[in-house]
């Protein structure tokens, strides 16, 4: 597969960021960090988490191989106009609540089918306060809401992030581009097919307990009881999820013992994610029965983190500091969680078998994943004495 890709890109003169190239990494990490991802672009890629790039005010979504052929052959793609949904994140998030918590909370409230057929705009004061990396995390999980496209209107935060990046416009061209990008935001009178309001002050750190991202709950909650679900088919599916996850209704989520922690993936492998985890880990040791992996999203992230000494903090705590890639998010290349093993993961999918046959996945933010590694159970940073 890799050989074919090398051969074809060379033949067609398509620029490639190969394994020995200093800019290699997960496409949804390196596109933005090199300035290839810009506001107003239409971006498609053979990966469902292409919605990540919507954080820049691009229309970005994942496609299959046939549509990819169409794009390469024609420079276009045929699409039906999606319905529109706006999600307003109102208020100010509490201390310790990350972008990952906001989006998991939303998916928990609306469900994984809510976004089907929609392009979603994330908006509101809590979104404006997020840095670009937080916005990418949020847009990354649009597809877990059912929406193949999620986006955030570009603003000064976006423009400041892009200025000076390798592939971003420079000088006069940059000023010209910014003028054009400022026009992209939805007008004050814009009407959406669906509008949702979320009060972020009520959001606590989130963890999933089941086998769908919509099985999200506050970390201080208990595993829900399927009996509370009146629809019998849905009740059976919740019971199936608990049986697969080897959990009992009523169990406190923050006391569930774990075997693995994976901090990485296109959802949460950027520098600020590693900084957030390192702050929690610093001066502490990983629990004896836990294997902890840190997988930076790109070589650039890895080098930046090393220049700040984050690798030492993780290694001293007993984590493995690994090479950039998708790794344990998708159980690729043998990076697997074993059958019946329980993993707190900063990735975006807790599907049955996603991290390996029989693997049990709990999705969470980098700070919660880091605290869980130290505690040996699902835990928030406060539980291990972090302030």
């Amino acid at each position: 597969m890799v050989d074919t890709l090398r051969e074809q890109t060379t033949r067609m003169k398509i620029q490639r960021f190969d394994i020995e190239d200093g800019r290699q990494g997960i496409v949804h990490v390196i596109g933005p960090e090199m300035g290839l991802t810009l506001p107003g672009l239409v971006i498609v890629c053979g990966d469902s988490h292409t919605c990540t790039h919507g954080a820049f005010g691009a229309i970005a979504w994942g496609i299959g191989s046939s549509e990819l052929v169409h794009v390469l052959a024609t420079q276009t793609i045929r699409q039906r106009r999606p319905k529109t949904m706006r999600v307003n994140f109102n208020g100010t998030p509490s201390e310790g609540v990350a972008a990952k918590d906001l989006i998991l909370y939303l998916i928990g409230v609306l469900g994984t089918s809510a976004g089907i057929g929609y392009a979603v705009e994330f908006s509101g004061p809590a979104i404006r306060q997020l840095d670009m990396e937080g916005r990418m995390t949020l847009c990354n999980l649009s597809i877990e809401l059912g929406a193949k496209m999620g986006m955030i209107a570009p603003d000064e935060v976006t423009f400041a992030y892009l200025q000076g990046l390798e592939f971003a416009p420079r000088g006069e061209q940059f000023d010209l581009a910014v003028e054009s990008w400022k026009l992209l935001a939805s007008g004050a009178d814009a009407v959406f097919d669906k509008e949702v309001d979320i009060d972020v002050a009520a959001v606590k750190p989130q963890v999933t307990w089941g086998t769908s991202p919509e099985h999200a709950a506050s970390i201080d909650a208990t595993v829900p009881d399927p009996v509370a679900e009146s629809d019998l088919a849905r009740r059976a599916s919740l019971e199936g999820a608990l049986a697969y996850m080897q959990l009992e209704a009523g169990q406190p989520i923050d006391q569930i013992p774990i075997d693995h922690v994976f901090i990485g993936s296109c959802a949460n492998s950027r520098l600020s994610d590693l900084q957030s985890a390192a702050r929690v880990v610093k001066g502490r040791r990983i629990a004896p029965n836990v294997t902890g992996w840190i997988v930076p999203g790109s070589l650039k992230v890895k080098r930046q983190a090393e220049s700040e000494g984050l690798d030492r903090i993780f290694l001293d705590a007993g984590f493995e500091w690994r090479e950039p890639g998708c790794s344990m998010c998708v159980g690729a290349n043998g990076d697997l969680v074993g059958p019946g093993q329980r993993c707190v993961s900063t990735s975006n999918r807790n599907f049955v078998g996603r991290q390996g046959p029989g693997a049990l996945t709990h999705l969470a933010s980098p700070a919660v994943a880091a605290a869980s590694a130290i505690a040996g159970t699902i835990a928030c940073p406060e539980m291990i004495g972090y302030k």
Partner: protein
Amino acid sequence: MKAFTICEGYAAPLMHDNIDTDLIIRIERIAKLKRGEFAPWAFEANRYFADGAEDPSFVLNQVPFRKAQILISGANFGCGSSREMAVWSIEEFGIRCIIAQSYGDIFFGNCLQNGVLPITLEQNQINALAKVAASGATVKVDLQTCTISTVATGAISFAFPEAQRQALLTGFDEVDQTLKIVSQIDRFQQEDRRVRPWVYTVG
């Protein structure tokens, strides 16, 4: 692309919501297999025990559903990963049509690229159809008239977007269709290059 007009056969009920593409085809298979080699690995985790033996409790291992041409399922079928091999594996198994409450958007698009018809129905209609199909009755799907028929239920109408319906009925290649308007695409690019030069240059 293979055209779709009528499909008549057994319909296997897989009555869960949120059947994801990771479950339909595993990542290891995607990396190693080519188009035409996926049929044995569709729903691998459901079809086989860890030792490779078939699990007789899974519907696609049962008579007559081993030869099913239609799948009936719940909400959000094909959610998750964009891997088109999920559609390939189902299609290579022999499925030409899926009837579900809703679909992952990317999976829906991938079906259209492969001559697989993804029909959307209401939950109560699906439950009624699943009950009939589970008894081993055959189901006939006609895209020309947009109807699903069984002896027990009679004809049930379904809606399908017209442009996509025509594409499936004719089986035209989408790339060929688009290349017919290549001069319009060129004109758009020339104008866009003037308005947004930074899109077409680097740095």
